[in-house]
């Protein structure tokens, strides 16, 4: 499946976090690279939604919808925030 980017999950992220997140900065817990969430590598039907670091390819976030509930795994992120 072709990789997209973080723009593709702007709606999902807003659903989960309650605010616009594509412009937030995420730092990879594996390699330390930091950048806008919009620039992350995104696979939409992996199954579930998988977000990977553009620098090292490690998994940053996983979202799985189970019976209308979003299950969120952010273990690959060191930090996620503004600026």
């Amino acid at each position, binding site marked *: 499946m072709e990789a997209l980017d973080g723009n593709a999950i702007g709606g999902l992220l807003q659903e989960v976090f*309650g605010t616009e997140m594509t412009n937030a900065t995420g730092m990879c817990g594996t390699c330390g690279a930091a950048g*806008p969430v919009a620039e992350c590598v995104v696979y939409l039907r992996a199954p579930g939604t998988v977000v990977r670091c553009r620098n090292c390819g490690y998994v940053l976030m996983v979202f799985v919808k189970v019976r209308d509930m979003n299950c969120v795994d952010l273990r690959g992120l060191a930090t996620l925030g503004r600026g």
Partner: protein
Amino acid sequence: MEGTAVRGRLTWQVATVSQLIDETPSVRTIVLQVPDWAGHRAGQHLDVRLTAEDGYSAERSYSIASAPGEPVAITVERLDDGEVSPYLTGELQVGDELELRGPIGGYFVWDADHDRGPLMLLAGGSGIAPLRSILRQREHSGSMVPTRLVYSSRSLPDVIYRGELDRCDGGVEVIYTLTRQQPPGWSGHAGRVDAALLAEATWPASQDPIAFVCGPTSFVETVAEGLVGLGYPARRVKTERFGATGGPGGPDGGT
């Protein structure tokens, strides 16, 4: 939903199709009347949800092709094996209802009053949609920022918004490249966007341009790498990838 939406929270709402515009044989613009629309910024997108009678539903993202202040419009490319785009481009009629949520996104956006650097727009195929919103916003806001658009299409009949783009003036330069087929006597560029075309057609990095790159993933990767190679700082190259072909919400003819 009715005026009670919490700020920042996305809610699904029902829009009504007010106009359908055939842009090319496989691309259609859908103009929507959205009762509870908060207003959008140039470059943002929205999510569309189609639900079948058996409850199966499919969501796709489509860039907003209209400028802030204009009726919400999306431009959809038909993909014959898509789940959503054949319906949107073939069966949807004026007056039909469509479930959507938005506006979405805060990264791939351009605000006329925030950024004064020259504007470098690069589109592949239906990736032109959000850039058209930016072009219109630039015009509506009276911005004089020097602007170039490099637009890669398969052939001349595949150029979306061609009439509008051909009429661009007032500091907007449009550079077409046709990848598969060129009409007789074509004096524009032919072939995919490559380093040579980028070097020739883009603003020099010394002018501190801001670039917006939108289209199929391979197009965006090539162009973004090329721009960084020309000295553009990565933070001045904003990208949005559609997959092989499709919208930010996946390969299904979106823009």
